[in-house]
């Protein structure tokens, strides 16, 4: 593997394959294809309609089956964008083949598999990353910087929320999205972002309690979730996620943090911070301060869906090329988020229903 990495640094491009050409697969394809050190060489996609179109218009090989792709195309790295229930077998195989992996969230359809994959990759010189894109958002990174540098003092309480108008009416069951064992439902597909943001900013809670789910339009999976997280240091927090909220035009994350020296309210685009006293280091005054994305954004070389989507994939490439030493959302980070999700479901089953 080291030899391959060395080769890439000199002349060769990283050979990337896209596994699954659904909504995220086609977005990631466009973004990573803009990277000068990347060559997209192959795509695995079982739908004949989609792969037929890729074949006709794009200079890549297509395969129905990822096993065949691994054998014939021999990629250096893959972007796994299939339904979550397929992640495990694909990544396990990729590991055997010595392939770097970026996998869309949720990491896997269950915690046991996520744990096994994390262990498999933990001792290998292979980049492994989960697509929790909020970790690459400039506002949320500023929130983390403030928290880590004690700007709002000892943390007491937080709230992490996410809203979207994704499921707004009763629909017929459609594939993996209507089954939790396959990784569908608002917790896996959407709340995982809000939960990972908690993991990113505050770490793993000691205990998960008070979890409830709402089945608003979907029959077999939840459309809304809330839960309470308890920490050893006395901090507590809640999450609330609803993907059937038509008042939101597009998916929105909100985070609110109360500390002994101040309070932060943030979403993807702006941050408000109230401080009990001036903070010279960060040029913040006592009382309310507002920071907009326009004040703090880091430009990206190519934009498709938001700076964070480009940043996360370019980071993956930088890690493969050895330009970055530590991955900002590795499998072990994704595993912790997965463990929290499991605890929410367990808590709901035990305590969240009326007898």
């Amino acid at each position, binding site marked *: 593997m080291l030899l391959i990495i060395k080769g890439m640094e000199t002349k060769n491009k990283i050979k990337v394959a896209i596994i699954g050409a*659904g*909504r995220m697969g*086609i*977005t990631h*394809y*466009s*973004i990573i*294809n*803009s990277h000068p050190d990347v060559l997209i060489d192959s795509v695995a996609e079982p*739908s*004949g*309609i*989609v792969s*037929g*179109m890729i074949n*006709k*218009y*794009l200079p890549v090989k297509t395969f129905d089956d990822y096993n065949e792709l691994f054998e014939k195309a021999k990629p250096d790295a893959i972007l796994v964008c299939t339904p979550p229930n397929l992640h495990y077998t694909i990544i396990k195989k990729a590991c055997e083949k010595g392939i770097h992996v970026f996998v869309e969230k949720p990491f896997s359809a269950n915690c046991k598999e996520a744990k096994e994959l994390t262990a498999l990759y933990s001792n290998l010189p292979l980049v492994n990353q989960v697509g929790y894109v909020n970790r690459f958002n400039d506002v949320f990174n500023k929130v983390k910087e403030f928290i880590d540098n004690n700007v709002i003092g000892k943390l007491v309480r937080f709230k992490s929320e996410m809203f979207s*108008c*994704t*499921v*707004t009416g009763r*629909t017929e069951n*459609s*594939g993996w*999205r209507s089954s939790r064992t396959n990784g569908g439902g608002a917790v896996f597909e959407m709340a995982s972002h809000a939960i990972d943001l908690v993991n990113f900013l505050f770490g793993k809670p000691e205990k998960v309690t008070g979890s409830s789910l709402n089945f608003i339009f979907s029959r077999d999976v939840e459309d809304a979730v809330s839960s309470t997280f308890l920490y050893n240091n006395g901090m507590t927090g809640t999450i609330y996620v609803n993907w059937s909220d038509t008042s939101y*035009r*597009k998916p*929105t994350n909100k985070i609110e943090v109360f500390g002994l020296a101040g309070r932060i309210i943030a*979403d993807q*685009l*702006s941050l408000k911070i109230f401080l009990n006293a001036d903070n010279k280091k960060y040029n913040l005054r006592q009382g309310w301060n507002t920071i*907009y*994305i*326009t*004040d703090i*954004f880091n*430009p*990206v*070389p*190519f*934009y*498709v*869906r938001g700076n964070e989507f*480009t940043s996360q994939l370019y980071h993956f490439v930088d890690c493969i090329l050895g330009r970055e030493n530590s991955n900002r959302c590795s499998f072990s980070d994704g595993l912790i988020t997965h463990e929290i999700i499991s605890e929410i479901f367990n808590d709901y089953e035990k305590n969240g229903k009326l007898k």
Partner: protein
Amino acid sequence: MKDRIDKIVFGDNQFFGINHMSQEKAQQLAEKFFDITNIFKIYNIAIEAGIKGIMLNSNDRAKDICNFFRSDPGRYDHLNWYPSIPYPYKYANLVAEKGIMPAINEVMFKDNNASGIANMFFKGSQAVLSKDAIKMMQMLIDVEMKIFRNLNVKVVFLQNIITDLLLGYDIKIVFEEYCNYIERKYKALPGLITQNMPWLIGKLKEWKINNVVICTSFNKIGYLMSPNVESYIKASSFNKPEDYQIMAMSTLASGAIPPHEAYSFINNQNIQSVVFGASSAGHINETLKLIKI
């Protein structure tokens, strides 16, 4: 140069709760313009102030807005229209819920009756369709453009989410066919909205695709401008308007730059047009005074 675009075009983000800097501002605007007559009022103020070009996205409310303008041709016939298609969230949400092909199916055949031939074509065989993404694109354009029928369409813009997605794929034929189709069928100029203007111009030149209107974020702080503001200044300064007319959007970076400062920068760039949105008479008149390109 044939078909010079309007120097100043009135945009629509303010009407639809879109603000790229603040969700709170976006919400306030959505509330203000919930009543569509408030939208018409602002349009009338803008038109009385001298606006002759209107950019409008083919979203849920565009139909009513177009009906309003069609209802009084004597008053509004002189306007040039700059539609932008499609309304991305309609597709994004449908795709999330149903998958790509069912979503396209639904857009084309549920609420709209595309031509009978298209209907037969699609229903007849998805396999045939799979070999012809161009035909599919043309049918989707037709569905979106029905909203703007009988209006004087000057440019048809492809939304940046689609332009930039396709740009990443690096496929000439789709851009070529889009431009040809808009010219041929709608007798309008093809337009591309992008957040990657220098990259797009480079590619269009390489592909020898000319006479395209490029609408792109252009502001002093480089917000929504990839890779950076310097590349934008350079790319536009070398550009010949005969090849690509450039229309600047997000000139205030969603309000981050004070208007005076924003336009003293914009007025010094080699651009042919500015699209701006405003939600009061004061802001409209102030902006019209400040733009001197």
